[in-house]
């Protein structure tokens, strides 16, 4: 048994603990440990990706207890994809942060690593309760990161963000235990197997638990009508943190994909699909409202936060369709939107810092010193997020449009996606022309901190990843296609976790079946 799947969780956890002990150490040492752990995790993510690509899902049994009794980590195509995305984002964001951001808060590095650990754990875990635990790990780290500096605006935004997420966690626990109460297991592969055998009178309970779970994931992924916490929390967070948060809504999307494809794939009885009547309308409303929010935003960071919501809407449009092909398109869009929203958050920060007191507010400010590179960076981010060809946004949206080709609602979906793309372009053009072209001579000299070389490198790296998605569009879509196929056929996943010779050793009380 290879220990590879445990590395993305263990290494950041140990390094974060070490950094907590060494919190008085010089910043160079903290940076070295933080960077070392992130690079190690990135290498492990690449190794997992290479390993998974060639065959069946990797299953790691903690303490070598056989599932479903022990806890398992499962790295399948989807997990490996998400890990690789997290690794690219985390590396670039950390590179940006070590240029000076990290020195402001004493605990930046350990919190960053705990957040990365929570993300990796959520992507790798094979059971629902550990999904809850890793969600809590990443959330509490994110509260700490979002609070940095303790300004009143940040306090208020974080208080709201923490309150709604703690309430959602309470509901998560109720849903998980209801699931356990009916089915007697929390291992996702085992649940997938058992859900078909649920007795008729328990079907309502299982569906209630499933819908509660999806409600919780909808809070985490900021879906209409549960997204109101996001704009304030993301737009007031420090820029590198906000850029890392770009993947946090995607954890919710990941959980929705995992639970709907594995446990409720559609069919008769308890396995019946839960999302079909409402996920598509909700996704389209989320997309529309997110875009309108971006159009009306008063700050660059708020605009980016609303664009995060819009991107979740677009992804869920693909997920709601449920076919392998549309899941593949949604995943491509997920990767693209995570990268480009991170770029947009970082560019907003650089622009805001270069404008003195005007900050990133959409008001005329002092003239920019590095107007040309900043303007180009903003142009790239805006064009990509709106989906101008040949950007990755264009390809992603095209694939989602293509995959929803067959269906009655095709006119509605196409209209919403195309109109919101135009509106996004309008929002970005408006923001860009105000920030870059409208300026007033300042009354007093501005104390701006010009972008450093390292920050440009981080930004270019993220933008480069987005461009690689276009250059290598064929292999990437082939891979996401494989992910889609794997998600729609549950057999290999269940078999990899439980083993083909798995014998149902224990009948739980709840199933009410006589032991043979």
């Amino acid at each position: 048994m290879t220990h590879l799947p445990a590395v993305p969780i263990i290494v950041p956890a140990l390094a974060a603990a070490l950094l907590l002990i060494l919190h008085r150490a010089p910043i160079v040492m903290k940076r070295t440990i933080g960077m070392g752990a992130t690079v190690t995790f990135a290498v492990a993510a690449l190794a997992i990706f290479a390993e998974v690509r060639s065959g069946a899902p990797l299953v790691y049994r903690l303490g070598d207890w056989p599932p479903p009794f022990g806890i398992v980590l499962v790295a399948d195509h989807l997990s490996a994809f998400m890990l690789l995305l997290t690794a690219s984002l985390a590396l670039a964001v950390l590179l940006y942060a070590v240029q000076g951001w990290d020195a402001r808060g004493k605990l930046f590095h350990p919190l960053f690593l705990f957040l990365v650990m929570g993300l990796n754990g959520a992507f790798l875990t094979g059971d629902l309760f550990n999904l809850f635990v890793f969600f809590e790990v990443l959330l509490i780290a994110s509260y700490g990161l979002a609070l940095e500096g303790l300004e009143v605006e940040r306090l208020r935004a974080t208080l709201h963000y923490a309150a709604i997420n703690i309430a959602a966690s309470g509901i998560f626990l109720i849903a998980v235990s209801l699931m356990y109460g009916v089915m007697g297991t929390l291992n996702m592969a085992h649940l997938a197997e058992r859900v078909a055998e649920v007795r008729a009178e328990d079907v309502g309970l299982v569906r209630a638990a499933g819908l509660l779970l999806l409600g919780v994931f909808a809070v985490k992924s900021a879906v209409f009508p549960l997204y109101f916490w996001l704009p304030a929390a993301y737009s007031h967070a420090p820029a590198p943190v906000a850029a890392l948060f770009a993947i946090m809504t995607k954890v919710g999307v990941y959980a929705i994909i995992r639970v709907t494809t594995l446990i409720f794939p559609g069919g008769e009885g308890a396995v019946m699909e839960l999302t079909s009547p409402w996920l598509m309308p909700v996704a389209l409303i989320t997309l529309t409202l997110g875009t309108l929010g971006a159009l009306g935003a008063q700050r660059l960071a708020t605009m980016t936060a609303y664009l995060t919501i819009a991107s979740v809407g677009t992804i869920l449009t693909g997920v709601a369709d449920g076919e392998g092909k549309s899941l593949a398109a949604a995943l491509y869009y997920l990767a693209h939107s995570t990268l480009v929203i991170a770029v947009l958050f970082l560019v907003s920060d650089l622009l805001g810092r270069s404008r003195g007191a005007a900050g990133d507010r959409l008001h005329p400010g002092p003239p920019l010193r590095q107007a040309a590179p900043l303007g180009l960076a903003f142009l790239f981010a805006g064009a990509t997020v709106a989906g101008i060809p040949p950007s990755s946004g264009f390809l992603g949206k095209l694939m989602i449009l293509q995959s929803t080709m067959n269906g009655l609602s095709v006119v509605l979906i196409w209209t919403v996606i195309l109109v919101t793309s135009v509106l996004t372009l309008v929002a970005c053009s408006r923001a860009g022309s105000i920030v870059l072209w409208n300026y007033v001579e300042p009354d007093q000299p501005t104390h701006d901190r010009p972008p450093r070389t390292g920050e440009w490198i981080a930004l270019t790296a993220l933008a480069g990843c987005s461009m690689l998605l276009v250059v290598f569009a064929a292999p990437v879509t082939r891979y996401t296609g494989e992910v889609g196929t794997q998600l729609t056929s549950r057999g290999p996943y269940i078999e990899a976790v439980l083993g083909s010779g798995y014998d149902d050793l224990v009948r739980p009380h709840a199933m009410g079946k006589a032991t043979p």
Partner: protein
Amino acid sequence: MELLMTIGIGTVTACAVYLLLRGRTFSMVLGLSMLSTAGNLFIFSMGRLRPGVSPIVAVGAESYADPVPQALVLTAIVIGFGMTGFIMALAVRMHHQTGSDHVDGLDPVQERRPEHGP
């Protein structure tokens, strides 16, 4: 006992929701901790209520309590405790900085009230 437990969990949850919907940080913290208590009781009862039996293998025992929910509830208590502690600290800090215990940092009722007192 099932009925008592059900009514208990329901009442605690209802109180939690009421407190959560008030715009005061103190009620909100209380509401969140009550919600997590209700959740913990719910997890515990999902292992079925069996008084007087042990959750681990014992000589001569005929019936066992399900140990998994007990393990889950321990984890949930620890996490809930940490989260409550965190949000309490956040609420106190917010009160210090804004002088109000309203969740938005400013009191809509006080804002409207005329300056002179009674």
